């Protein structure tokens, strides 16, 4: 069974097409990079795949669950690390995780496991408001892993982090994929996408303009062996990274 199957997925906002008939699938245990400039439709796609947003047309299944019709069955199959640090800042890291553990009906011992996994045990009693960005990101990952999801959505997981923390986050992602977890990754860092992803899809103005392994894309769109994934990205989207769309 494919981990993710997307067929002709479209989403309109007030008559404007944010995502236009995209199709792809993701294998179990694969790290799938989903790249695109700002406003290309990455977040809209993630929202549809995680059941937060209803597609205008088309279908999508995650671990065999239709994202519209079987939304509740989908939820335990997925974990999401959001781009923004959406944590309860007045609560401690442990209380944040215990809250979600109760929602997922996960045992308290699992909270301690994930805290240890992301290296936050020593600061677990501290309020999240006192955390650095790197610690918050670790906690977001811990939260997403709490219920042992089959598919993990990582939305810009290393954005704004210092290189050491970013490397730790990438190591965690690789380790999870090695354990068989499917990872759907969006990032602005092409080097990171190149390093982590088994395959990447590049989305521009709501349409997928390329989908293949990073190596194939570099060969297909590059001029020589020095071509980077960033060169491919700029070639396909006509935009440099970091610029608004």
């Amino acid at each position: 069974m494919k981990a993710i199957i997307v067929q002709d997925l479209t989403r309109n906002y007030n008559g404007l097409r944010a995502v236009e008939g995209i199709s792809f699938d993701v294998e179990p245990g694969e790290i799938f990079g989903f790249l695109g400039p700002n406003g290309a439709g990455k977040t809209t796609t993630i929202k549809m795949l995680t059941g937060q947003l209803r597609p205008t047309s088309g279908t999508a299944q995650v671990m065999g669950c239709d994202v519209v019709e079987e939304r509740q069955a989908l939820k335990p199959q997925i974990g999401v690390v959001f781009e923004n640090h959406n944590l309860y800042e007045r609560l401690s890291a442990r209380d944040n995780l215990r809250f979600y553990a109760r929602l997922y009906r996960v045992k308290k011992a699992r909270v301690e496991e994930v805290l240890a996994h992301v290296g936050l045990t020593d600061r677990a009693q501290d309020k999240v408001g006192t955390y650095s960005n790197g610690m918050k990101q670790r906690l977001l990952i811990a939260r997403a892993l709490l219920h042992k999801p089959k598919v993990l959505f990582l939305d810009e997981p290393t954005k704004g982090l210092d290189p050491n923390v970013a490397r730790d986050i990438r190591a965690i992602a690789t380790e999870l994929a090695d354990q068989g977890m499917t990872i759907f990754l969006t990032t602005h860092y092409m080097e990171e996408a190149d390093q982590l992803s088994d395959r990447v899809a590049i989305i521009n103005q709501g349409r997928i303009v390329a989908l293949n392994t990073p190596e194939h894309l570099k060969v297909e769109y590059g001029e020589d062996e020095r071509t980077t994934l960033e060169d491919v990205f700029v070639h396909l989207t006509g935009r440099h990274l970091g610029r608004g769309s």
Partner: protein
Amino acid sequence: MNTTSNKPFDNLNVIWTIASKDILDAIRNRLVISLILGLAFMLSMPRVMSWMLDPPYTTVLVYDPGNSDLVLELENSPQFQVSQARSIEELKKTIGSMGFGLGIEVGVVVPADFDQMISAAGQPELDGYVSWTNRAKADEFQSDYERQFSDLLGQTVHLNFEGNIAYPSRDTALLLGIAVITSVTLILIMGIQLVPNLLFEEKQTKTMEALLVSPATIRQVVVGKALAGLFYILVIVGVVFAFYYSAVVHWEAAILAMIGCGAFSVAVGLVLGSFFERQQDVIGLMMLLVLIFVGAMFVYMVNVQVPSFVEAIIPWIPSVTLAKIIFASFLESVPWAEIYWDLASVLGISAVLYAIVIWKVRRSDR
């Protein structure tokens, strides 16, 4: 992991998990604590004022058709200030419109033949009246006033307070009317301020997104927030009734008022919280609502002259019906049929608001 189920227990578990987080958070939330402390401060003001302005004498209201020596002695005593009523009805009405430690606490009816009874070395008995808020202190007043009156006349005087409780009437108890308006206003402000904030906070910090990819559904989130909001409101209503504890005559009506206040305040709060994203977006609307609710109560309670179509609408405005129910809990006899009807109208309007919230929530993924 077994995380999906449609069993009612799981549904309640999710709702309670969300509600309990916010209830516990309220204890840590400075805004909530400061609003409750502010409410307690406002409610305690009349009592604080009465303590601060407590004169060195006691004002007693008398109805004295025989111009007795007792009243003359009272007027000459530095311990008393005498106020005269023109009839027993006026005396009862005046005492009944006081309370909460403000104004005259005791009224005395002096029989027309009081002086003759004294001259005949009899032991005259006077009828004493206390405000309904002081009804628990009637025995204390009785012995206190008997002793002071006997000392003044040099002869034993009996006072009878039994059954002589002066209750407020809807037309005359302005002080009570203001207390009721203040209470309903504060309860509604709390609902309008706190309940949407529970949703705004989740939206602004984007934690709502995390909640919605968890097993919680948007409906469970809204119901959880409503429960937490209801808890806030009931704490506030509890504070209000704790301050007016001595004034409540019919706790059944008070409980109905609490139900109505909770249902309506939470419903208004949820509508604001579902339709808007941030508190800043609704400040104007919140103020307008408070203005309408408070204005309607003033018009109704103080009998302000308004155009006939406004007059027809005002009794249906929920703040007015809630004020009527709270007011009824202080009265000697409750017009139950009217109160049930008022409660039904508040709950009906609340139900419409909840239906609007459900409609909005169902469209949240579109």
